[in-house]
């Protein structure tokens, strides 16, 4: 668990998508074996996370693929098996399903099945969550499923810096890493310090507090921090733990905040049943059972294919108001 650090001099203001682009760039300069595979990635379509890279690194390293997700993922796994570092970009969550056989059956398992002879330094970047009226097939989350696959590392950055760090770390890691990018974050502004790949990706204590803990990841961190401001005005001091990695999971970090505040709200972007919140809740419950002053609460999305109409879609995913309300309930809980 790292704490938010004090500002340094090399900071720039940028967006989440630009930070990803910068991470690609910095890593590719250092490691000529990195190649990017994806649809329209030379053009940087649609989110700009690869924009301009073809100009610096050329079309042999920034490779437009046909719309062939299964073979592209398999090609990524095979290229990694043969010792280069491919990044496979999948723009929307729904398309990842086409490549899952290759990712899960081959990518995640080859090291183990080979008796530790091979490594698969593959990075898969996937857009997650809603983007705003892109409807059900384009607005899904796959955090819980991917984090359940032995052999995969699953990152879920929440901030500009975390996005950069996640990708830089993934690009020096020797096993497959999936970077789950909440699409609502791509245009988010923040400060970025470019530099070295971090040693580790764990979790960030975004805010300290004593009243209760919100444990979350990705876009949830934004909601939690906004909610914390509202709640602070009411005297409720919220601690916000952001999980930059879901697999491995920072069990010690969850335990520590749970034991500290003794009230835990798990905030996720999928439905609580069989979603990320269930796992956070299990960990918090097991690790802090003896000190908890309230049941662990879980807040997630409604169990529904994401509707197109904005007026329905906004009912599906957690909101700041929803977090505030749940936090109040948790804070006021009397055994």
């Amino acid at each position, binding site marked *: 668990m790292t704490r938010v650090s004090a500002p340094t001099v090399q900071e720039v203001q940028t967006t989440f998508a630009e930070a990803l682009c910068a991470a690609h760039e910095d890593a590719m300069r250092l490691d000529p074996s990195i190649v990017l595979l994806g649809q329209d990635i030379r*053009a940087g379509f649609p989110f700009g996370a690869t924009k301009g890279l073809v100009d610096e690194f050329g079309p042999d390293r920034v490779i437009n693929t*046909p719309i062939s997700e299964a073979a592209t993922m398999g090609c990524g796994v095979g290229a990694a098996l043969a010792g280069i570092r491919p990044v496979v970009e999948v723009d929307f969550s729904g398309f990842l399903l086409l490549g899952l056989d290759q990712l899960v059956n081959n990518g995640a398992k080859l090291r183990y099945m080979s008796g530790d002879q091979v490594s698969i330094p593959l990075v898969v970047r996937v857009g997650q969550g809603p983007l705003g009226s892109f409807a059900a097939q384009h607005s899904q989350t796959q955090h819980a499923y991917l984090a359940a696959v032995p052999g995969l590392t699953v990152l879920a950055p929440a901030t500009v810096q975390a996005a950069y760090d996640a990708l830089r770390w993934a690009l020096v890691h020797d096993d497959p890493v999936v970077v789950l990018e909440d699409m609502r974050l791509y245009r988010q502004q923040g400060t970025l310090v470019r530099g070295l790949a971090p040693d580790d990706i764990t979790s960030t204590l975004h805010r300290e507090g004593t009243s209760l803990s919100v444990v979350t990841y990705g876009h949830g961190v934004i909601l939690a921090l906004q909610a914390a401001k509202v709640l602070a005005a009411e005297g409720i001091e919220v601690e916000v733990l952001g999980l930059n990695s879901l697999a491995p999971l920072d069990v010690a970090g969850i335990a520590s905040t749970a034991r500290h505040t003794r009230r835990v709200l798990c905030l996720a972007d999928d439905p609580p049943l069989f979603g990320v919140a269930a796992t956070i809740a299990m960990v918090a419950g097991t690790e802090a059972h003896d000190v908890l002053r309230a049941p662990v609460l879980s807040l997630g999305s*409604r169990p*529904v294919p994401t509707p197109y*109409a904005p007026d*329905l879609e906004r009912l599906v995913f957690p909101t700041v108001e929803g977090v505030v309300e749940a936090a109040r309930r948790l804070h006021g809980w009397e055994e």
Partner: protein
Amino acid sequence: MTAQVQARVDPDTARDLYSRMAVIRRFERLAYRAYERGDVHGTVHVSIGQEAVAVGVIGAMGEADTVLSHHRGHGHALAKGVDPGQLMAELCGRVDGVSRGKGGSMHSTDVANGFLGTMAVVGSAVPLAVGVALANKVKGIDSVCVAFFGDGAVNQGVLYESLNLAALWSLPVVFVCENNSYAITTSADESTAGEGVVARAKAFGVQAESIDGQDVIAVEETAARLISGARAGRPALIEALTYRFMGHSRGDPPHGVYRTKAELSEWTQRDPLTLLVDAAGLDPATVEALDAEAAAVAEAALAFAVQSPVPAEDELMRGVRA
């Protein structure tokens, strides 16, 4: 060829074809504008330039036949008889939308009109059409299913799995590839090796033809022939060569990034509406009247859409287990 075409089409048919294409054209223009104004949400893929494929193929279909389509599907919906107002309401996320506002531009369904739906995952409607055809065969119903998709879908493996099943089981299904030369910014040449989808389909035992997708009469004639073959158990694939006159979706300029202005203007000279006017010798007054009618239909559709209520909260969990 023009002469030949002209001989094949009587004035009533020509007016009818023109009118149906013109409605699509005006609908799409308004849809795009409605997107810019914020009435249509998310993204929008319009089919301006490709109207002859929708109108020609679907014009050759029977009432009991069904259609499946993809992200660029408004034209197919309209050609299959979906009410323009309900379709536009869907695009606007309103409760009178053909899918109650839950599907949007990429997922309109209208079962009553045999429009079974549009799938946004490239290529994924194709095996559904095989299944629909299988069901029709099992039920002994005389009905052909047509699946529309783009050149981008030509490298999705499921297309070939589907062609194989269709041929193996002699299913009443027709695959229509609208080859508009681009999948977003990627040209078909950059993404498709070999001789193209027609040669590929033939190698899978599916009869296949490549045609001029701007010539609605040629499209309809070919489609009629291949659909009747499919009805008799010979599945078929049509590659219609066409072009999208606009960008891929909202925000994407029609030219300048991945295709040139010259290429675009070469193709806009092959506008399916004007080609039909020339081929059929439709007089300017008729055309003007039909255009005006089409514009009125589209305007009425949008007017209907924007007055329709947004879905109430209790719509959220309807159709799914809470």
